[in-house]
């Protein structure tokens, strides 16, 4: 299943999909990162010394579908992990949820706030491996293709008449003017204001190559990504088996790659991955963590593993149109009655001590500005849950469940069928709420049915799935919780929240934006439109001989710094 997105902002939204997947897999994460600009220079500082050469085999859980990650066809992590090593990036999110302007001379400059004009300067040294420099032309062509329109294409479904298959227009559609100042400098005017502009210009292929392909934007990069502006370049793709990248000897960055090749071995069945690692057939895995899988990898003496926490978080969405859930007393009782710590202890703690309850639905715990809000709900409290119900006019029946006006509180809890973890979560929550007198019935559906049909139609009472936070949290949260928004599945509506969200979305100062983000969350703890559970862990296993490989739990994924990967001095000797 293809997952989702990476472009920062929006992100949040999409959610879901990805995660789900249970059987098929995978991927999860995605998404962006952060709002703060701490400018951490990750490169070159503390990198461990490397020996020459080496080849790393990565267990990819899906085969790429092509290489233009900006189309809806190729917009998944399987493609992202490959092109992350090849294309031009103005900016990448750091593991700390900061931004690193890898392809720029510096942070984009705010030339004017009203109208909003921003200036970007591409790094002077940035070049493709065929010798051409990375120029404004590459960026401009990229922008033009995304926003290419043809009046003949206008239809009910396509009101703007877009020509190309583009996964995501957010940010680009606000651009009113793109102006090339010189080969390396360009200015962009936005209207309306686009606060998350710092995350723009990623995954950019070479314009000259794309223009020369018969398939153009949509399919021109299906078989070959073209010249590389990254630390590796495309070598070979054996369909159904593997894809090989080799060192780009002309890489312009400061840290030169030393690995000869990175091989993506396609292994969609995640249960095959730990065995392949144990049997020396792959060197690196990055699957959805699961108890047995993690234990199995941790048993291996020649492999180090790392659990990280990304922007993806599990939560319960309440359908506020439900006759019981529209009553705040019931939502309060659920929030008091669900033992989030117990869920974490049962499902996450066995493989990570750092796993913890999440107390914020706009920011995740490793993000700057995170606050543990919702103090009164942090510890489970069955007594308070029952108090809330009694205060709401409910009375306990002989069967131990509360009822009002003769109607017993009985709610469906729905999640993605086939995802064992989620299914187990549902059973735990059902048992916990039974103790405070609320009856739950398990009613799961496969991810596609849940996300495509049931959630949008409001055919659920309590839904358990994941949202993806973001480096740009305000835009994401606004899309999810704003009155009338498409992904506001629970039909939440709060004028005060809408006001704060709107303010946040046009705030160009990222520090102030984070404060507004926190305020948005506090507002929601009063209404309880949903209940965050915990941040999902990511899991990276890598053979000991490799150095400098580490996860980046934002949407960048583990390949964010592949230029500094290598084999250790000892192993090379």
């Amino acid at each position, binding site marked *: 299943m293809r997952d989702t997105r990476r472009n920062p902002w929006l992100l949040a939204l999409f959610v879901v999909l990805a995660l789900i997947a249970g059987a*098929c897999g995978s991927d999860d994460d995605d998404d962006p990162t952060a709002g703060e600009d701490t400018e951490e220079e990750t490169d070159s500082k503390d990198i461990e010394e490397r020996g020459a050469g080496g080849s790393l085999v990565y267990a990819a859980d899906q085969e790429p579908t092509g290489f233009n990650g900006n189309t809806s066809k190729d917009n998944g992590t399987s493609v992202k992990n490959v092109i992350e090593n090849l294309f031009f990036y103005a900016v990448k999110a750091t593991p700390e949820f900061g931004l690193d302007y890898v392809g720029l001379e510096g942070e984009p400059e705010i030339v004017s706030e009203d109208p909003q004009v921003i200036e970007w300067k591409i790094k002077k040294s940035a070049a493709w491996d065929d010798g051409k420099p990375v120029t404004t032309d590459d960026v401009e062509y990229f922008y033009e293709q995304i926003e290419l329109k043809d009046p003949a294409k206008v239809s009910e479904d396509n009101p703007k008449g877009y020509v190309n298959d583009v996964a995501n227009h957010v940010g680009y559609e606000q651009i009113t003017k793109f102006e090339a100042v010189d080969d390396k400098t360009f200015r962009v005017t936005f209207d309306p204001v686009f606060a998350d502009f710092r995350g723009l210009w990623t995954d950019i292929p070479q314009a000259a190559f794309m223009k020369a392909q018969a398939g153009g934007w949509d399919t021109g990069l299906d078989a070959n990504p073209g010249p590389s502006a990254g630390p590796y370049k495309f070598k070979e793709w054996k369909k159904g088996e593997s894809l090989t990248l080799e060192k780009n000897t002309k890489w312009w960055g400061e840290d030169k790659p030393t690995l000869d090749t990175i091989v993506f071995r396609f292994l969609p069945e995640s249960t095959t991955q730990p065995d392949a690692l144990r049997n020396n057939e792959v060197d690196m895995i990055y699957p959805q963590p*699961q108890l047995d899988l993690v234990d*199995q990898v941790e048993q291996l003496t020649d492999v180090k593993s790392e659990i990280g926490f990304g922007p993806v978080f599990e939560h319960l969405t309440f359908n506020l149109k439900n006759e019981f859930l529209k009553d705040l007393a019931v939502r309060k009782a659920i929030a008091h009655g669900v033992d989030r710590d117990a869920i974490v202890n049962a499902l996450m703690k066995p493989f990570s001590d750092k796993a913890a309850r999440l107390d914020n639905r706009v920011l995740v715990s490793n993000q700057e500005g995170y606050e543990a809000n919702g103090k009164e709900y942090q510890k489970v409290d069955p007594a308070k849950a029952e108090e809330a119900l009694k205060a709401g006019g409910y009375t306990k029946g002989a069967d131990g469940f509360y009822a009002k006006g003769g109607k017993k509180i009985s709610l469906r809890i729905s999640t993605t069928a086939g995802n064992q973890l989620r299914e*187990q979560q*549902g059973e735990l929550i059902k048992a916990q709420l039974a103790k405070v007198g609320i009856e739950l019935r*398990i009613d*799961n559906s496969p991810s596609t049915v849940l996300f495509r049909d049931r959630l949008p139609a409001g055919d659920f009472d309590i839904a358990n799935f994941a949202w993806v936070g973001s480096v740009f949290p305000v835009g994401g949260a606004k899309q999810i919780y704003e009155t009338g928004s498409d992904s506001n599945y629970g039909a939440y509506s709060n004028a005060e929240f809408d006001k704060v969200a709107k303010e946040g979305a046009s705030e160009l100062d990222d520090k102030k934006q984070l404060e507004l983000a926190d305020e948005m969350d506090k507002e929601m703890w009063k209404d309880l439109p949903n209940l965050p559970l915990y941040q999902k862990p990511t899991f990276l296993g890598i053979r000991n001989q490799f150095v400098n490989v580490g996860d980046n739990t934002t949407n960048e994924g583990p390949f964010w710094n592949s230029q500094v990967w290598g084999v250790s001095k000892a192993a090379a000797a």
Partner: protein
Amino acid sequence: MPDPIMESGTFNAATETTGPMSVADDADIPDEAIVGAASHLTSGVQPGPGVPATTAGDFDVEARSQLRMAMQRFLRHRLAMVSLGILLLVMGASLLGGKIAPYKFDELTDVYSQGPSLDHPMGTDAIGHDLLSQVLRGAQKSVQVALLVALLATSIGVILGGLAGFFRGWVDAVISRLIDLVLTVPIILLLLVMAAKFKDQRNNWLAIALLISAVIWTGVARVVRGIFLSLREKEFVEAARAIGAPSRRIIFRHMVPNAIGPIIVAATLTVALAILLESALAFLGLGVSPPDTSLGKLVAVNIGAANTRPWLFYFPGAVLLVICLCVNFVGDGLRDAFDPQQNRVRQ
């Protein structure tokens, strides 16, 4: 006079794959094959009373006594009897399920991922399910699915295979093409395509059973068709026809009783096949919906636990293995019982 029961196609019943005669599109070859296969049975020791079955009435008597003799032989088959005993025990336990299980199958204890202990003889899973209780419940569901499949698939197979073998001609041509049609598509893949519609249903074990039945009736149908093709040429059938017995009576009063041995064998083996198919579906992501469970699902979801929580991997798998193994042994014993030829080779 050949014992009709013995003729019933030694090979056909041997596995649910196909006997040569049943695949052929061409009626000539199958007939000859059956006659050929039967021909060397005729010299075998006749276990039956040897009463020439010239009339329908006589024959019923003979068929019944054949059945009794087969039962006697079966009762003497030690491996099969032991298997049957184990099977009855396991089935009894699983049917009692909730009564004898130490916990309710969907009850969550606060003992997570613990190996076998006195409290939890088979250990617990990640959220505190008692594995023994789950295995009992799973066995119940699996057996439920398997029995339903055996019943449905056998019924469809006997009816269609019987019609094809009895009427031959265009009826046979149509039914044989239908069988070919189902056979041209790999069972597992066909199930997956069909199951895509049902995977989000609650209580989908019923749907799973129906789907499995819909694809595996062909095995029984081919066996029955082969037997009927040969039976219809027999004197007692001709005699019945000569005295004007209607087709329905001939089929159900005369032919089915004579084919009962292989049918029972095929039905038995279908039970094991259904349990395994259900587990394969669970492995490919189409198991019964939680909180319910089945043996196949328990085995499938714990497939990664072999090295880390071995009890989760081995106990459900072993129980499933024991059930299928016993069913197959019973089927094998039945086959021997209905086909005594197989036991009297050398002195």
